[in-house]
């Protein structure tokens, strides 16, 4: 059984939580990698591919990019802050994640109202698949944020610090995936 430690192990140089989150992120990279590979196949082989800025709302996409970056920045501040302040920062990042999801919902609603649904063409099918999966990751991260923010009373500050550290790495991954999605769908 792997002992539940919060300090860096002498043999690995990292804590078990950090090692675990890196392994999890490696599996996530493979998941999104497979989807981006499918995107490359469909896009390159397509006879026609619409320009994202003509179909999607570049303004909402750009706003979501700023919100997500800001959210990760706020969460990274929580890594080095002392507890009551760190908790406030985590809750602020939760609010920003909700803003991101709100903007995404508004964007989806507008597109669906215009009849831009996944069955229309391959561009929209891949767009909804990738942004939908990304939004699910934001929801997952939001739940984990709340779990970290409220768990300190139960598990103590040392264990919570490990969770916050792991979550900050997760959010950077979510940001990187969003940036790739933003460039591929909104800018190109």
């Amino acid at each position, binding site marked *: 059984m792997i002992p539940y430690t919060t300090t860096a192990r*002498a*043999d*690995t*140089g990292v804590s078990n939580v950090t090692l675990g989150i*890196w392994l999890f992120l*490696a599996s996530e*990279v*493979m998941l999104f*990698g*497979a989807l*981006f*590979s*499918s995107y*490359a*196949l*469909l*896009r*390159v*082989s*397509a*006879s026609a591919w619409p320009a994202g800025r003509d179909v999607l709302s570049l303004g909402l996409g750009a706003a979501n990019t700023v919100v997500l970056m800001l959210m990760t920045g706020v969460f990274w501040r929580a890594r080095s802050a002392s507890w009551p302040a760190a908790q406030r920062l985590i809750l602020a990042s939760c609010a920003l994640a909700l803003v991101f999801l709100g903007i995404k919902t508004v964007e989806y609603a507008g597109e669906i109202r215009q009849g831009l649904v996944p069955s229309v063409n391959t561009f929209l099918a891949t767009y909804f698949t990738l942004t939908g999966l990304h939004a699910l990751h934001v929801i997952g991260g939001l739940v984990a944020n709340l779990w970290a923010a409220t768990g300190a009373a139960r598990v103590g500050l040392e264990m919570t610090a490990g969770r916050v550290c792991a979550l900050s790495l997760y959010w950077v991954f979510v940001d990187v995936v969003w940036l790739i999605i933003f460039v591929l769908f909104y800018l190109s």
Partner: protein
Amino acid sequence: MSDAFRRLSLVLAVALMWAASGDTAWACPVCFRMEDGPVADGVFAAVLVLMGVTSSVLVGFAVFIHGFVRRASKMEGGNQ
């Protein structure tokens, strides 16, 4: 040899024999004998992306494991 292992070996052997017995070579109908064209380009791009992602993850693991080995040998040196 356990019963489960023996049964698994038998299933694998039967599957291999079945696969080898076919007289028709199966190929992917998308890219078989396709040398040019947008679909071939698409498949090539997809393979390139997937190879890039997989290689990056594998290199990451290799660096990670190399770090473990270096750290372990350092610890061993310190203990002696």
